[in-house]
């Protein structure tokens, strides 16, 4: 490590061994997941929501600002990507780029109105603006497909000049495409967090008053962090639209925002990789429990439940983690090692 590197203490992202394990697990996922009951599309979903939760955590964990409306920018990325594929051009990278642009521009405009708020007020205003986009997607039937969602587009093969990769029919190829985008985004976030700009965000998180009296214009820096975070979560949304060949208005709803916040906090919002772990646990439990929740709730509580009961188990896990392990699941793993 060079002199530039901050001697970080609790962040796993800077430990080479842990880093190698994470990337190996992600690279090999399509090959080991089936052995523990998973499947490739589930791995892709984990990457998508892992990226979403890590993007949110760029704000929550590293700038100290809670946005409760980030699903809106996830959704804008999804709709932007879907609409671009449907009406503009049959190019997957271009569609993703436009989705990211839509999320970032919306984040830049609304962020400018939000950044003067703090704490609960910040969270409330982000919810309110998020719901505006939800209702636009829900009501503007001609363009967005309304409550039926946006259909009629498909992810397109990747033309690399020397070869063409079919990411539509080949789930494993699509997984690696998503992993590539994920790696790019995550590397960029890590790079930013270790830069002087990233340091000012940590400063704002740690002590806003001190940061102000170091000469940092707080509002400008929170706004920049907000836009960066919106751009990355829009990328996650775009990938989600490609995964499903479908964009769902519920993806913009504040309950979706809440789920992304839960993933980040569950995994550990003070660590760089925590939110990915949180997303993996959340998405896997959702997938596994929505299949078996009915059986469980009848057996254990004699409830004639329905599939939504998986939220009960996630909620229970969330409460336990928040009460007992304030540094999240990753915090537990790290403590176990030291």
């Amino acid at each position, binding site marked *: 490590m*060079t*002199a*530039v590197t*901050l*001697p970080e*203490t609790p962040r796993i992202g800077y430990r080479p061994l842990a880093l190698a394990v994470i990337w190996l697990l992600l690279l090999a996922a399509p090959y080991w997941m089936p052995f523990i009951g998973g499947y490739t599309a589930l791995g892709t979903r984990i990457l998508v929501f892992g990226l979403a939760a890590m993007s949110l955590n760029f704000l929550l964990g590293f700038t100290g600002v809670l946005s409760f409306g980030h699903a809106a920018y996830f959704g804008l990325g999804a709709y932007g990507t879907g609409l671009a594929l449907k009406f503009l051009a049959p190019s997957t990278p271009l569609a993703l780029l436009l989705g990211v642009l839509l999320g970032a521009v919306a984040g830049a405009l609304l962020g400018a109105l939000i950044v003067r708020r703090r704490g609960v007020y910040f969270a409330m205003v982000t919810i309110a603006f998020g719901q505006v986009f939800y209702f636009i997607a829900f009501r503007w039937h001609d363009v967005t497909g309304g409550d039926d969602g946006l259909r009629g587009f498909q992810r397109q093969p990747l033309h690399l000049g020397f070869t063409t990769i079919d990411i539509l029919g080949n789930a494993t190829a699509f997984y690696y495409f998503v992993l590539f985008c994920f790696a790019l985004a995550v590397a960029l976030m890590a*790079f*930013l967090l270790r*830069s*002087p*700009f990233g*340091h*000012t965000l*940590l*400063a704002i998180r*740690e*002590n806003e*008053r*001190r940061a*102000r*009296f*170091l*000469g*940092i*214009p*707080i509002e400008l*820096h929170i706004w*920049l962090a907000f836009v960066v975070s919106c751009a990355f979560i829009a990328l996650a949304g775009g990938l989600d639209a490609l995964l499903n060949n479908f964009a769902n208005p519920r993806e913009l709803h504040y309950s979706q925002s809440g789920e992304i916040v839960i993933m980040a906090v569950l995994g550990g919002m003070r660590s760089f990789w925590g939110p990915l772990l949180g997303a993996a646990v959340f998405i896997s439990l959702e997938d596994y429990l929505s299949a078996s929740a009915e059986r469980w709730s009848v057996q254990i509580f004699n409830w004639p439940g329905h599939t939504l009961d998986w939220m009960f188990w996630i909620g229970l896990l969330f409460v336990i983690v928040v009460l007992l392990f304030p540094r999240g699941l990753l915090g537990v793993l790290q403590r176990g090692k030291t």
Partner: protein
Amino acid sequence: MSVLEVKNVTKSFGSLVAVREVSIAVERGELRAVIGPNGAGKTTFFNLISGFFPPTAGSIIFDGTDVTSLAPHRRVRLGMARTFQITEIFPELTVAENVRISAEVAAGYRLRPWLGRAEAARVQGRVDALLSLAGLAGKGDRLVGELAHGDQRAAEIAMALALEPRLLLLDEPTAGMGEQETYEIAQLIRRLHRDSKLTIVLIEHDMRVVFHLADRITVLDQGRLLAEGTPDAIAANEAVQSAYLGKAA
């Protein structure tokens, strides 16, 4: 020439007048102590100078620039740095990180997404120099929130110094400290004043520190300027004696 000129500033909060028509002028290289009984308006006065809030009336000139209505971060950029009565640091970052953030901001790098090798080395050199100046060499990798109170205060002063200020405002730098810690901080302030020729304004309760360090002393009482002069003149001033004795009685 004065580095800091405060002209007739008044600050009222509703019907309470915390500072009433106070004027001071601090010369370059001077170490000025501001003293006064509790509730005299010392911290309010400091907050006015550093831009925490604007004055109700009056003006503040810093190095020839009217900064009366300037935001705190703009004043910092002009060369005014401060520490707080209750230490304000980044507790979950290391001592070196605390100082580094400050040094990066001072170097104009705050929006930079990366640093070149030479730039990074320059920042690192600055951090190392400040840590040893503040007596924190060897403690750079410790979380600042876990340090002893005196070291935290030294770290805060190092952060302020990293801004390369032309005026350093210290709000009760020895508050809550024991004998040894007070002595060390006083020695640090003295070094900054004597060796680095820094202009310093400090609020201080410990009279030994004040009379040992200050070139001139400003006494506030109930928001008003009660007296100003050299330590000898202030020690002999009857109005000052009665303000302090009156409070003690």
